[in-house]
């Protein structure tokens, strides 16, 4: 089903003048041309059965996104109940299905159509910003998508654009599906979060109200109690003191209880928060999935650009080790020695003292470390410093 690519050229696109692709014609078509001769006129009349709202106030008009021709509900029932049929509007040969008819959302049928197209394009081109390396790439992508949308809306190169659209859809089926699910999840979790927040707010309000009531009641009770005891002839001072103490104790209890409640709340809040967070984190991890292949050397290769090591060098001192059984059996490899000797011979080539010093200063961040630096250099001089 690709209704997008087989759009009726009469719609938009400057009445067939569109395909030449000239922007101003297109724009004029969009804004000035009456989209449909049938839906003009203040009296809303069904173009098929000619019944009007004047006679039937419950008249509802429906459109089908196949061709966007308007007709009344009873006509739709009548014509399409027995299965797909041709559009009854003269000159339109599209086959329409009943289940696709729906009420018009926007008054302007062009807007209606553009929104539909945009929805369709968005459903396929649903990449997210975090999938791109930078803002620039993302903007380029958005630009491409807008090009396609614009072409579809204005019937420019419809065939070609439709092909591109479908090719993309086919190639990225899986990712599109994933992103759609992601969006769905986000929507669900967002609405759940909002709901939870509302619920919490309501509970807090209720609790505050309850507390206030309780407090007021207790104060009343306390007063009554004191009065009763005074009436029964107790000592006024002690009664007053006791009453105060009772009240204080009650208040303390209440405070402790609210504190407990609050902690509980905080705990559950943090749990909620963390569960949300975890879901987010997981998504991000899935995004970062494609890892670089393992480099066993960790990016550090020790190779010299100044020499290549040979297996054999003509020198008795070296060759003898390859005959000496003790060297052989012990696993001594004379290449270690020749390598080191060559390193020593060539070390210093391509090293610029000034650069090295600034490098070092930056590393130590402290000019006072020169003492150690000098000692280091001394050490390297003495033996086996192999910068290569």
């Amino acid at each position, binding site marked *: 089903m690709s209704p997008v690519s087989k759009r009726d050229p009469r719609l938009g696109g400057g009445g067939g003048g569109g395909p030449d692709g000239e922007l101003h014609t297109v724009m004029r078509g969009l804004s000035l041309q009456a989209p449909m001769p049938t839906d003009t006129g203040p009296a809303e009349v069904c173009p098929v059965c000619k019944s009007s709202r004047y006679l039937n106030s419950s008249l509802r008009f429906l459109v089908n996104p196949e061709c966007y021709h308007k007709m009344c509900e009873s006509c739709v029932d009548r014509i399409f109940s027995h299965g797909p049929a041709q559009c009854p509007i003269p000159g339109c040969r599209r086959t329409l299905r009943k289940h696709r008819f729906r009420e018009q959302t926007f008054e302007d049928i062009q807007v209606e159509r553009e929104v539909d197209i945009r929805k369709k394009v968005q459903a396929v081109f649903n990449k997210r910003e975090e999938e791109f390396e930078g803002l620039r790439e993302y903007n380029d992508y958005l630009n491409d998508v807008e090009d396609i949308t614009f072409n579809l809306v204005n019937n420019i190169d419809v065939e070609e654009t439709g092909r591109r659209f479908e090719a993309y859809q086919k190639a990225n089926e899986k990712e599109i599906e994933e992103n759609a699910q992601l969006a769905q999840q986000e929507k669900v979790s967002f609405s759940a979060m909002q709901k939870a927040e509302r619920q919490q707010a309501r509970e807090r309000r209720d609790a505050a109200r309850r507390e206030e009531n309780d407090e007021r009641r207790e104060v009343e009770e306390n007063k009554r109690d004191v009065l009763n005891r005074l009436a029964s002839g107790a000592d006024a001072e002690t009664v007053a003191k006791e009453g105060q103490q009772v009240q204080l104790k009650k208040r303390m209890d209440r405070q402790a209880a609210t504190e407990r409640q609050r902690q509980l709340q905080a705990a559950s809040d943090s749990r909620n928060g963390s569960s949300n967070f975890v879901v987010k984190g997981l998504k991000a991890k899935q995004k970062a999935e494609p890892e670089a292949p*393992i480099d*066993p050397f*960790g990016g*550090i290769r020790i190779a010299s650009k100044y020499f290549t090591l040979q297996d054999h060098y003509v020198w008795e001192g070296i060759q*003898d*080790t390859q005959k000496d*059984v003790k060297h052989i059996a012990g*696993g*001594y490899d004379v290449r270690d020695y020749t390598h080191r000797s060559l390193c020593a011979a060539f070390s210093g080539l391509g090293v610029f003292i000034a650069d090295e010093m600034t490098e070092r200063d930056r590393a130590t961040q402290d000019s006072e470390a020169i003492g150690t630096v000098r000692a280091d250099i001394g050490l390297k001089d003495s033996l086996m410093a*192999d910068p290569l």
Partner: protein
Amino acid sequence: MATSPALDVPAEPPAKRRKVSPEPPGRNDTLAATAASPPAVADLAEQLDEQERKKYVKGKKIGSGQYADVFSAHLVTNPTKLVAIKKIKVGPEVKEFGISYDSLREIKFLQELDHPNIIKLHSVFSTKNQNLNLVLEHLPQGDLLKLIQDSQGITYTPADIKSWMLMLCRAVYFCHANSVLHRDIKPNNLLIAANGEIKLADFGLARAMADPFQPMTYNTITIWYRPPELFFQAQHYGGAVDVWSVGCVFAELIAREVMFRAWPENEINMVKIICEKVGTPTEDNWPGVSKLRGYVTPGDVVPLRPREEWLANFRAIGDIGVDLLIKMLTLDPRQRLTAEGVLRHEFWTANPRPSRLEDLPRKGGGVEAMGESLKQRGGELPRDGGGAANGRADRVARKIDFGNMKK
């Protein structure tokens, strides 16, 4: 050179111009001579030393041993930047031999090697009585041994093992490519940084690769991790000795027990157990082995263990992992993989992918664990607690080294 008590140490004192070496006050040093004329003013070396010392604020002691004390410390300028200061104790031998070779080696090699998986030496300074203080990277997560031994509390996956081993192998490769033999690779020398990274530490037994016909000591590397050629007293060896130790660590990580654990731990028992578990070294599988000075094999010749047996014992790591293990624990050091060969093995790129740092299991042994580990001297077996170590000092490498010199 003839007076040098250990062959192991290069003839030329590497730290000749360093302030750390105990300089007799009257000596005509180029540095000292410029500033030392008025006795009231400290000489330049001392000034520099003091500058270095004042950069750190020493905190509490996090470990103490026979050989060194370890303190937690931080920068004066930035209290969040933590370091560990290893203060080497001055023993009686200092009078006789000067600073211990362990510390010299450690300073010398750590200064050279700058690699993410090798512990960093930030600086060195001395205090009043010529104590050496090594300012080391702060590694608060304990060592690998703690993780291996805590079989109740910690579980880890083959992916974790691969991640740790990869970091270790990179460190070893880096050492070898820079002509340094570590010679004491074992789980408790593999410290864990705050972010989970493995750091190879304790270069107290390290040395530069020897020249042809320059003998090296065979009495090095903690005995359980020592390769067969050293038991046969080979004096000319190469990076393969470290690769064997790495193989032992690998096996230990998989099985969670020491691969070659001889008891009582002497050389003969070690050879016996290696013969048992790998196979007897013979001229067939190791050309020239019988010419080595210390070549002895116990009783019957055990054929090389077939691949299936290895697979049965180390099933958990998978076929490719076992293949790597076999190649690292090959008897003949020339057939054993080199450190570079290890990194080229397909194990690393095969599935599963090595765990990311943040996913690695943590023990959180804390700074104490670091102190515990750093205070030790190379070649010591850590498992029997600090007390027992004193009694077994006769098995420590250096001691025997000195004896050998008298020949």
